[in-house]
């Protein structure tokens, strides 16, 4: 009897120990994921960038978008943000503006400004995993995916990278079974990401092609997203990246949808 109790106690301790160990690992991975989230979406109090988007299909036919992005953090906790996306090219969407207020406790608020009609249209918070302006990037790739929507795990570690596997908590809401990120240990920016379907086929691949230090912040200057099913891809090139420009919060309002804030878009 005593033996049995001993065995149970031993097993119990073992189990508890494992629990503690895996909690520590979970803590560590969440810490990394938080840093990654910060490095991609929250560096600086605000951020401005010109963005050129080359959207290529499998036959190399190209569509081109030229965009200016403004982003402002509303707190220091990597929480609420406001985004202003101004289109310069192609001609049919020139002066169009997409604006989003990223909320923490509820769905994002989104607006679209159509200049020919002078119309400020409120748009429903749609499926985050649909194409952003016809590119191979999704809305979520541009504005961030809530880190608590996936379970993260470090599956490999090299001198340079952490490889983190992320599995969705609600798989019915997303098109992937899981994805893996190769995180640069110095910058906490992902240099590569792979999205897997239920057959463990990599149907979508992200690569950061160039990372530069700008005003002390490691910044992705060149990146691409490939759709391995269709053979299409989108290449992003950033330029004139500026941080902490002091973009006022009221820029992200109906007033400036109707009248672009030129001084911050330059």
């Amino acid at each position, binding site marked *: 009897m005593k033996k049995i109790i001993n065995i149970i106690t031993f097993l119990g301790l073992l189990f508890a120990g494992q629990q503690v160990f895996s909690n520590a690992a979970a803590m560590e991975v969440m810490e990394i994921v938080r840093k990654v989230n910060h490095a991609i979406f929250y560096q600086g109090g605000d951020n401005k960038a010109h963005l050129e988007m080359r*959207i290529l*299909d499998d036959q190399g*036919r190209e*569509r*081109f978008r030229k965009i200016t992005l403004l982003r402002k953090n509303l707190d220091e906790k990597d929480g609420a943000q406001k985004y202003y996306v101004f289109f310069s*090219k*192609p*001609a*049919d969407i*020139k002066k169009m503006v997409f604006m989003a207020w990223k909320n923490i406790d*509820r*769905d994002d*608020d989104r607006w679209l400004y*159509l200049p*020919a*009609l*002078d*119309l*400020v249209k*409120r*748009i*429903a*918070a*749609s*499926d985050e995993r*649909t*194409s952003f*302006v*016809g*590119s191979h990037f999704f809305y979520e790739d541009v504005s961030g995916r809530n880190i608590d929507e996936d379970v993260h795990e470090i599956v490999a570690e090299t001198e340079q990278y952490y490889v983190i596997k992320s599995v969705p908590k609600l798989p019915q809401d997303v098109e992937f079974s899981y994805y893996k990120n190769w995180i640069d240990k110095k910058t906490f920016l992902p240099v590569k990401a792979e999205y897997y379907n239920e057959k463990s086929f990599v149907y979508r691949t992200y690569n950061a092609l160039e990372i530069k230090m700008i005003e002390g912040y490691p910044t992705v200057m060149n990146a691409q997203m490939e759709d391995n099913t269709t053979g*299409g891809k989108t290449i992003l090139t950033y330029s004139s990246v500026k941080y902490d420009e002091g973009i006022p919060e*009221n820029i992200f*309002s*109906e*007033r400036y949808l109707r*009248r672009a804030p*030129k001084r911050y878009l330059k």
Partner: protein
Amino acid sequence: MRKFLFLMVILFGFNLSNGNAQDDLEPFLSFNGMFDLRMGVRTQEDPHEKDMSLGEFRLQLETEKDFDLVTFNVATDFILDPILDEYEVDLERGDGIIDLRQMNIIFSPLDFMDVKLGRQILTWGTGDLLFINDLFAKDWNSFLIGRDEEYLKAPTDAVQLSLFSDRINMNLVYVPKFGADRFVDGRRVSFFDPLAASLRGRNRPLEVNRPDKWFQDDELAIRLYRSFAAYEVALYYYSGFWKSPAGQYIISAKATFPALEAFGASIRGPWADGIGNVEIGYYKSETGAAKNPLIRNSEFRFLVGYEREIATELTLSLQYNLERNLDYMDYLQNLPQSVLREDKARHVVTVRLTKLLMQQNLSLSLFNFYSPSDEDGFLRMNISYKISDAIKVESGSNIFYGKNQESFYAQFRNNSNIFAAIRYEY
């Protein structure tokens, strides 16, 4: 007035830009715009109109110039339209080879104030192709014959003053001379004439008497708006005239634009995984309208709408709209026996479905207006494909249905049409 404006802009502009060295090599003015070729045919014969409903070539030129304190905008269309076959320019009616869409200056005399002066496109309110408090000029002909949706909005010569604060924002639009809708007058689209109790078209277009005295026949539109968390709330006021003919002289039979005052409110925000909106309006018609059967009565208007993405790249939008006569008893008592009686209320339900495919280059859309009270409707279908960033091809239909030729949509039955277009943007 317009000439004066133009001169002022030029003088202003050059002065302001003096000594403002440009370090980039951008040209002083750069133009954007498009070529658009569009053809449409009626799907049935209309004894009052041509078989072709649409046939035009359009060139749009657009430029914008920023000076230190002022932004200058011009957008103008040059049109060859053998269907209407009228080449004399009438900027107000949008006739002829030139349709000036925009020519304005924008400046901010104070931090919290924007002024937009000149010809401009104005829009506010929450409806989707239904308008209660947006009493700015519309071009209904463009809408019915298959031009791009942007042409539903006609330009207005106005000064717009916008004031912004943390608590509340205000737009005030003053139109010194009444700008009517580009309404259905028979020249392009046949319609039902209730006095004659018959259809009318290009052989006998509607004649109107426009209020056209500067600074007397003027319009004022005000919007106060702010947000409460995610909900946008607005109050509206309008003083001017019915934008499309809403009255008639008994002797000359000329259509008129009776005086109109409107008070309204709207709210818009997230609801049930989508966007919901409610808008109301009280239209106060000309004094004496209640007892005059030839002048449209005061009305209560109500709109509720909901839009959400129901599947990937598929959006559904639903609306219900009410127009209710507020002096119906008076209307009935004063209505001559021979004149057709209108219902007390008109109800309209709309459905819009939009689907994007092929990296958003192919777009399919359907918009149906249906009135259960009139038992008629209007179905708009459209398919468009972007061959490249510059070239878009498009085809669509405008189908009017209903059994009574006097009802709102069914009167256009003979105008049901299909159209195709090709557009090059630069």
